[in-house]
């Protein structure tokens, strides 16, 4: 009897050890995957940083690139909401405007540095976003979309009609100063890239934290999230506020890239729709998504400069085709095989005993 018992414990101990070993292998593998992702990002950002050094890169190209980056940042903000929290806002153009005007007015009246302007824009958008969230979170899905659309429209009207904002004439800024140095195309481009790097890093950290997990829990199964102790109102408000703050940064940059803000531009609610579109086309569950989407939304009209209407048509056609054939977004099209391969590896190494079907493409 006692011998038997001992043998049993031995077998169990062996099994335990085996499990431990497998778990640590899985951990190492995951760490390696993260390292690869980070490496890819570092490469991309490194390339963006040294791009101005190439002699063939002209000033206007950098301005255009700055515009793309601004859209990517705004789209990253919307992605936090749409992709990771499952809330849809069609009103983020409003936060773009709030960010732009906060920074522009501070620069105009107090002559603050661009860095201060950006931080102020971030805080202002974040605060207003939190306040709005408290109102709009009462509405679900489609209703919230319309409510936020109304918000963007409202911001446009306010900016246009209250004299303080100089809506009709716009605000003209003289120059951009960063940490006391005046910057031009090249400098502004670098500032934009740095902002993009910081925002991307932040979004990455957010998604890979307990807070991000709570957002995704609310997105996937509200009841289960509540049973896990997630405070719905608190975390949805937080998500909305973060999302608004990030878009606010994009707004501040947008004001300074052309050194001019005008309510005419922001009153156009299709500005908001464009940001949402960037996220939908690019993909909302991978950080690469907004990069693809932002590039698409800015470069499409750029290529069809003489044919503004044609670019509208192309935008619509691309949007419909993407939704039809790659509803998860273009970035997912690229990343899906990679993700699936990694998942299979992790599953097998982890010692899954369950027969799995391949995940559906939807």
């Amino acid at each position, binding site marked *: 009897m006692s011998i038997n018992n001992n043998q049993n414990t031995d077998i169990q101990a062996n099994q335990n050890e085996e499990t431990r070993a497998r778990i640590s292998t899985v951990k190492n593998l995951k760490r390696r995957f993260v390292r690869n992702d980070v490496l890819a990002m570092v490469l991309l950002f490194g390339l963006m940083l040294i791009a101005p050094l190439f002699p063939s890169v002209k000033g206007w190209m950098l301005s255009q690139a700055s515009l793309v980056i601004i859209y990517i940042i705004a789209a990253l903000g919307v992605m936090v909401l749409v992709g990771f929290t499952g809330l849809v806002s069609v009103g983020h153009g409003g936060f773009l405007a709030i960010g732009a005007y906060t920074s522009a007015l501070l620069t105009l009246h107090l002559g603050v540095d661009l860095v201060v302007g950006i931080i102020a824009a971030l805080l202002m958008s974040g605060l207003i976003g939190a306040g709005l969230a408290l109102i709009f979170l009462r509405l679900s899905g*489609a209703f919230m979309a319309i409510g936020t659309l109304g918000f963007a429209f409202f911001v446009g009207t306010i900016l246009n009609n209250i004299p303080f904002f100089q809506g009709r004439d716009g605000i003209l800024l003289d120059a951009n100063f960063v940490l006391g140095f005046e910057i031009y195309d090249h400098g502004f481009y670098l500032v934009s890239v740095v902002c993009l790097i910081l925002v991307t890093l932040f979004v990455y950290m957010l998604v890979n934290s307990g807070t991000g997990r709570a957002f995704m829990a609310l997105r996937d199964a509200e009841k289960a999230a509540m049973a896990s102790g997630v405070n719905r109102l608190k975390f949805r408000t937080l998500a909305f506020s973060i999302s608004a703050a990030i878009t606010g940064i994009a707004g501040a940059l947008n004001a300074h890239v052309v050194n001019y803000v005008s309510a005419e531009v922001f009153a156009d609610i299709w500005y908001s729709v464009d940001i949402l579109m960037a996220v939908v086309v690019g993909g909302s569950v991978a950080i690469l998504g907004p990069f693809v989407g932002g590039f698409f939304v800015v470069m499409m009209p750029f290529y069809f400069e003489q044919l503004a209407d044609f670019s509208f048509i192309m*935008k619509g056609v691309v949007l419909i085709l993407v939704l039809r054939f790659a509803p998860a977004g273009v970035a997912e099209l690229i990343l899906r095989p990679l993700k699936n391969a990694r998942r299979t590896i992790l599953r097998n190494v982890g010692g899954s005993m369950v027969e799995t079907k391949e995940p559906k493409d939807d």
Partner: protein
Amino acid sequence: MLGQQILSGLATGSLYALTAIAVVVVFRNTRTINLAQGDFAMVGAFLGIIFLKEWGMNYFAMLALVVLCCMALGGFVERVVMRPVAESDWLTLFTTTIGVYYILHGMAGWIWGRDTKAFPVSFEATPVEVFGALISKGHLYNMAIALLIGGVLWTFFTKTKQGIAMRAVTDDPETAYLMGIPVKFIVTLTWVMAGAIAGFIGVLMAPIIYVSPEMMDEILIKGYVAAVFGGLYSFRGAVIGALMIGVAENLAGGYLGSHYKTSVAFVMIVVLLAFRPQGLVGIQERREI
């Protein structure tokens, strides 16, 4: 003066109400927020110009033909664009209509140009006295048409077989399908109806706001806000919401200055949400917080 404001508010409100009804029809039957609704009307207005100016049609023939064309447009959009994604979540449906918006917008700009055009039929501004307040003939005419369309829709939904079938589809599409109601046909019919309403709106609005690719953007948003007022499911709520927005806007325009007219709709929705989050007639899809 106050009665005056209210009356002309109701006149604008009735046009918002038509948009809101079209929004509600589509949302109820297909769970789609149709962002292209305004553009159907915009296309209708441009066609109206062509029919009147180039084809020399009279007003009522033009109206009938515009409505027919818009119905065809609605049906076409449903069959070609919406049907393939019909099973998706509401965000996909919604963004697909954004695609339609962009295409119609771009096409209109491409074919007819971006600048504002006057509608050949001018707005009948002769004042008429109603209950002691003055109102222009044109507004009265618009209200009458809106009322007529509302009545026709009401009869359709409560009295005809198709209308009742449509309601069944709204309530429970699967059971409706099992009961032999042609769900797909009903969905197409929905979009055709949305097109028809848009045709009327386009022709009615054109003399007031002139014709351009962007002409409907603002009205569309108000129509939406009105629809949210009623909970997106209720025609009655949408109509009441639309009339309220119309009146409130006019009062704000009269007493605060016309600049603030346009933000009234948003302020109203915020107030509504703060005090009556279930919507005017009860929003079924409220999120608990």
